[in-house]
């Protein structure tokens, strides 16, 4: 094994085996799919998949940052919904509303993220229960808000354009959004002190604190970013479906976590690359698409989905034996 590794070119040796496996699985899925129907390799189909993947990709980016810290953000489902519903509601208020619709949706997400961040970083509440609680509060707020009267729920034109329009011919705008978010995330993670301190905190917060990092502020900001990205994903989803709905975020929590983890990011934090998350997102999207193209009933889809995640993690996600 070592002898083989030494013969490989330097750039291949540096690659994370998890990322390589994930990409290999994507190719395998496409290969198997092409047996079923030749459409799987057509550019139209692939671009369509990329478009669907971009929503999950943007949401998973925030989740990845949080997981790198060794925390988890379970408030994602309702932050997605809040982003979608709030931006659609504001879009109802004339011209000003239409302009601030998208920023306002993201702003609401950032606010929820800040509450998460303060609870986790300053009050030292375990993130799993803190984000669960804010999720419940966000849900309660939305139920009360939509229950009394029915606010506008159709997405703003700008959100529709971002989700379904084309600035560059044939490349959907939502893919460009993901590209922008991804580029920013890669820059943040690899080229800034802030990003490096995320990895540091994920490995050992105590050591990061002792080396002079304001760890609590970093944790708080990361949760705010995660909230903002989840809300942005919600805005785009509303634009895609041209309508905001209450439980639209529910279907995104598990895929987001699964995508991040399948991409080789350690759920314990401190380890992982954005390329892996991209691979994970594509893998999940392709898997879902192939299962629905094969017209597998819902129960079969759930079972295959769960089994594939377990099998892939058994392939490369195992922890080292602590002996």
């Amino acid at each position, binding site marked *: 094994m070592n002898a083989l590794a030494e013969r490989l070119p330097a750039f291949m040796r540096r690659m994370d085996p998890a990322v390589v496996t994930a990409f290999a699985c994507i190719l395998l899925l496409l290969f198997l799919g092409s047996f079923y129907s030749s459409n799987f390799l057509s550019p139209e189909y692939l671009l369509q998949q990329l478009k669907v993947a971009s929503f999950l990709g943007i949401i998973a980016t925030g989740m990845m940052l949080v997981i790198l810290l060794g925390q*988890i953000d*379970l408030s994602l489902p309702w932050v997605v919904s809040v982003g979608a519903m709030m931006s659609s509601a504001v879009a109802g208020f004339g011209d000003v509303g239409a302009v601030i619709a998208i920023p306002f949706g993201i702003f609401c997400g950032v606010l929820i993220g800040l509450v998460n961040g303060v*609870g986790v970083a300053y*009050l*030292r*509440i*375990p993130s*799993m*229960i*803190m984000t*669960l*609680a*804010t*999720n*419940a*509060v*966000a*849900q*309660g*707020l939305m*139920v*009360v808000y939509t*229950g*009394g009267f029915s606010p506008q729920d159709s997405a703003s034109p700008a959100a529709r354009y971002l989700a379904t329009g084309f600035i560059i011919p044939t490349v959907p705008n939502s893919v460009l959004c993901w590209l922008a978010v991804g580029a920013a995330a890669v820059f943040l993670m690899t080229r800034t002190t802030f990003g490096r301190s995320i990895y540091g905190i994920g490995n050992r*917060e*105590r050591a990061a*604190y*002792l080396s002079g990092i304001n*760890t609590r502020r970093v944790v708080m900001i990361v949760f705010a970013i995660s909230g903002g990205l989840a809300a942005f994903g919600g805005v785009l989803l509303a634009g895609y479906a041209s309508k905001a709905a209450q*439980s639209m975020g*529910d279907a995104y929590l*598990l895929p987001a*976590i*699964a995508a991040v*983890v399948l991409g080789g990011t350690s*759920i*314990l934090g401190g380890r992982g690359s954005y390329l892996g998350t991209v691979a994970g997102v594509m893998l999940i999207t392709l898997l879902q698409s192939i299962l629905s193209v094969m017209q597998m*009933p*819902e*129960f*079969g*889809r*759930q*079972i*295959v*989905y*769960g*089994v594939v*995640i*377990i099998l892939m*993690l*058994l392939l490369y*996600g*195992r*922890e080292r*034996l*602590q*002996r």
Partner: protein
Amino acid sequence: MKDWRFWFAEQRGTLMAIAIFVVMFIIYSSNHPAGFNANVVQTASNKGVLLAFVAMAQALVVITAGIDLSVGMIFTLTNCLASWIVVGSPIQAFFGVVGVLLVGALCGAINGAIVIYGRLQPIVTTIATGAVFYGIALAIRPNPGGSVDETLADFFTGRFFGFMPASLLTLAAVVLVVWVPFSRSVTGRAAYAVGSSEPAAYMSGVNIRRAKFAAYTLSGLLAGIGGLFLTFFTYTGEAAYASGNAYTLYSIAAVVLGGVSLFGGKGSAIGAIFGAMAFRTIGDLLFVFDFDPLWQPLFQGVVLLLAVSIGAFGLFRIRNRLDWFG
């Protein structure tokens, strides 16, 4: 320190949970339009017992420093299964009940095996197995329906001696048969040891694998009992994704309210039971005060948020800042 102070320190979380529950229940029953009577207690206990079983299941895993995000789905799966096989002659119904409990335990054992031998993180593992369990539930019950042995169902949801809810007695019996022997056995102590510090437990020669496997399997069994009870209450089975998810989330909330540390090694299933009862009572408080039911989710969320923030008061006791980081 005297013996009782050690005992008190160990049981503080559980006692807090009992206190919260008692206060909430007094507020609840004293404002209930029907007053405090056997019917009110029966309804409240039937509602609370479901979450109590799931919360106990969650507590067992959390004590080993794991988390089980599939409890709600095991609960849903066993509900669907029970609506299918707990029918027919008394003998058939009996074997149906045994089958349902076995499937629950099997689900837990699968989780345990993947976590122990697959060396995957519990949180990801149970997310994935939860999807599988839900898929199986959906295969059994694509549409809500089915039926259950009604004599059996009425027996377990009725009352003994005219005032004692049977569901509450069953809960007590399960605690006596499952939790008490487990927590006092070597394996049970090992589960606590693994939760406090796995390397230390390993160094002291504790059988880590057996402890974890027992905890996960029993957790599945308890979730299965919960699912069985859901069938007794509703007479039907339904593969409801939202309700399964809600039970998972509420079980975590109940466990935290019940004084079980999410970092493992602290707390007890008894605390989780009272946490679950308190959580249910809080949710129902709004009804007795005649609020719009629209406000219920928000109210429940805010109470949950406040309850978890109480834990932050412990920060004032910390003298060394490095202890912030555990």
